[in-house]
């Protein structure tokens, strides 16, 4: 007779490595404390779209350095923000870049905010500035970086529309303003603003 030998086998190939379906997750960049202005780049809309609300001025690149050039750029930027605030009532960026001890800054910010919140507004009155004198203040500690500047400010004619609808006109003028820019780790702040005679 035939002898039959049967063998059954379940063959299971146990291969190594089945690294399937893993999520490719590149290491995220290390967060850093770069100060980024939140204002959108100013892109003046000409012509028929000029009725669109003005864009907040963008921080110039030069204003991010702790130098005289940086202080100049910051002071010019600050005045651009003042014009923007007068036109829109938006004082958020100005407030962020002003020291709480700067009474002149606070007065301007509070005045604009109150006027707009109560239903008033400002028309015209843009300031244009020329920095006529700037110098660094030196204390004992060289880590303190501060620049004082005398700024010649020209204001255009302006109509102040009060909440009750009455209007007041401010004529064009020119004045001198002393300002103090103080460097804080990675950005400038205005620490003083005074009208000078």
């Amino acid at each position, binding site marked *: 007779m035939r002898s*039959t*030998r*049967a*063998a059954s*086998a*379940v063959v*299971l*190939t*146990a*291969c*190594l*490595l*089945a690294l*399937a*379906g*893993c*999520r490719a*997750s590149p290491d*995220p960049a*290390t*967060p850093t404390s770069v100060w980024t202005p939140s204002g959108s780049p100013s892109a003046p809309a000409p012509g028929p779209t000029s009725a669109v609300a003005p864009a907040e001025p963008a921080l110039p690149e030069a204003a991010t350095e702790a130098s005289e050039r940086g202080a100049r750029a910051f002071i010019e930027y600050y005045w651009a923000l003042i014009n923007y605030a*007068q036109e829109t009532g938006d004082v958020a960026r100005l407030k962020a870049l002003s020291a709480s*001890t700067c*009474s*002149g800054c*606070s*007065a*301007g910010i509070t*005045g*604009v905010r109150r*006027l707009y919140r109560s239903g008033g507004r*400002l028309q015209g*009155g843009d*300031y244009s500035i020329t920095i*006529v*004198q700037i110098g660094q*203040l*030196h*204390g004992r*500690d060289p880590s*303190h970086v501060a620049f*004082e*500047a*005398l700024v010649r400010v*020209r*204001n255009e004619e302006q109509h*102040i529309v009060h909440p009750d609808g009455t209007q007041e006109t401010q*004529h064009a*003028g*020119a*004045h*001198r303003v002393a300002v*103090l820019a*103080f460097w*804080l*780790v990675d950005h400038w702040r205005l*620490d*003083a603003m*005074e*009208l000078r005679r």
Partner: protein
Amino acid sequence: MIAAGLIVTLALGAAHADPPDTGTDDTGFWLHQVQGAHHDAPPPAAAPQADQHTQLQPAAIVGHAACAGADQAAGLLFDVTFCPGADPEPLPLTLGAIRTAFARLPLPAARLAIQPPDGLTLVNFATNFFTTDTHPLLRRVTILGRQVTIRATPSTYTWAYGDGERRTTTSPGAAYPRLGITHRYVRTGRYAPRLSVTYRGDFRVGAQPWRAIPGTVTIDGPPQRLRAVEATPHLVGY
């Protein structure tokens, strides 16, 4: 040349001369407010005081302000006092802030390996699960202006086998033949097993010792495709 010299002289002189008169003293709205603040200001004798509660950041204060560690500078326009701020740190570094930063860290999911490979296993067979992502991860973050290093260490692994069963282990399992984490599927079918890794955290500021961060962060991995089939006997004759 003479004309150029005159222009320079005039330009320099402008720093001290009054600006050209436009026939009005109107300042515009903003400067009118500034002027008002100036008039309302206290007399020089009462110099502004650095408020120890609100003056958290360094400041250049006009006048002789009273603040600890004051540094003074005299300029042409202002005499200022540099105040370092009430606290040398902008804001105190709290455990809560570190915990929040830990929870927001973009930590990776652990890669799930299954044996047998290729998404196919057998019913009633010890299917092997493991991961090799077991090493602590270091991340450097800035919290309230300070550099903090966070170390995230995988502490537990939750294996969801896709058939309703799950298991949490401290072991990451091991590759065949050591078989640390295995599961037997009792029915044929398609399953979507997945691995979640739970990290515990430590932090340190500069070279200070490591400190534990309360709480953990769990990152769910993506589901994988796995089919459990019945073994087919093959008769082999000799």
